[in-house]
């Protein structure tokens, strides 16, 4: 098994783990954390695709690498918006929960 493949399998586990956290954690902040964990796994998959595309003197295919850089920044923007919404919810209701009856 190649090194790239090893990291590919790692990304598969990370996606599953993050998804699990996203489903079972009741607290929204933990869901945001888990979502970022999934993001890390997906980006890693891109990194593996890039690594496998190494050639002509490049260590990896620069196109997926560039996409990951864009993705990381957008993921951060989404996280910041989610956190702001959560803090506003807390400010408004005194709770940080997604329960409808709360």
């Amino acid at each position: 098994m190649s090194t790239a493949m090893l990291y590919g399998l790692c990304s598969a586990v990370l996606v599953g783990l993050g998804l699990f956290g996203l489903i079972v954690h009741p607290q929204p902040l933990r869901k945001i954390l888990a979502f970022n964990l999934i993001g890390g796994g997906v980006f890693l998959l891109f990194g593996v695709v890039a690594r496998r595309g190494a050639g002509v003197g490049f260590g990896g295919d620069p196109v997926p690498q560039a996409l990951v850089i864009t993705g990381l920044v957008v993921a951060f923007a989404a996280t910041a918006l989610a956190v702001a919404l959560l803090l506003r919810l807390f400010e408004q209701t005194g709770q940080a929960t997604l329960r409808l009856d709360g």
Partner: protein
Amino acid sequence: MAFDTGLVLLVLGVAVWTIVARDTFAAVVGFVAYGLLLALVWVRLAAPDVALTEAAIGSGVTGVLLLGASTRLRRTETSGAGEKPGITLRLAAGMLCALVSAGVAAIVLKFPEPAPTLAPQTAANIVATGLGNPVTAVLMAYRAIDTLLETVVLLLALVGIWSLAQDRVWGGFPGPRHHADLEGVLTFIAQLLVPVGILVGIHIFWIGSVAPGGEFQGATILAAMWILAMITGLVDAPPVSRRWLRLMLLAGPAVFLAIGLAGFAMTGAFLAYPAPYAKLLIVTIEVPVMLSIAAALALLVAGPPERRPQR
């Protein structure tokens, strides 16, 4: 290979910790460690540009954002206990997620041979951009439209956050006012760190045209230094209605768009650079884009306005 196996196990261990930790604060500590280890992984995958971005955004700035949220929400920590899903649901979720993981793993194992790649095309066209770093060339030329849209996405997220402000503080100062540390140690550290960090940020930006680095990485470091100055009370966050701030946020996308439109006149296509001026135009775009991204990132962390504007 032994090194990589160990690194993978470590990444997975920290990821498990982030999910199972009882305390949110501890989970955030785990997440920061996760980002740090992923930066190592990116170096192993021969992607130092991504490693820089991961170290700066994925670990550092996201970590500080989540850390701030977890301290603010600390009192709600125990209230969620009753909502924990039952064992059946957790088991079902575990099985579903194992299935998803197995699916992704199957895709990884069935990747086509030889691997599809755009590296030769990038190598063939990089000369025309005048850049030495293929990733920057892709970001600024081949996929420039992505980069342009991304700067807009950051602004949209910022508008979204600002719109969460209450009416009475509309246009005011974001976040709480931090006061300089009485004992002076943190203030001293920040005073040392901020100028060094600004130098490092500019360095990372500047080498981005020939070596790993670039405007995103540089901008994140600059943003981190601004946030540092804010949370240690060295400077206050500006009221979001300030004109210079709005101009700074808009400058990057505006210049990018203007040069993109000028591409129609010069070469007949959007975001096409005439070859002799390609590098000059790219640098002209990159400088304001970096400043805009840095401002946007810092303000995304600072959050919605919470204090009334003075005037």
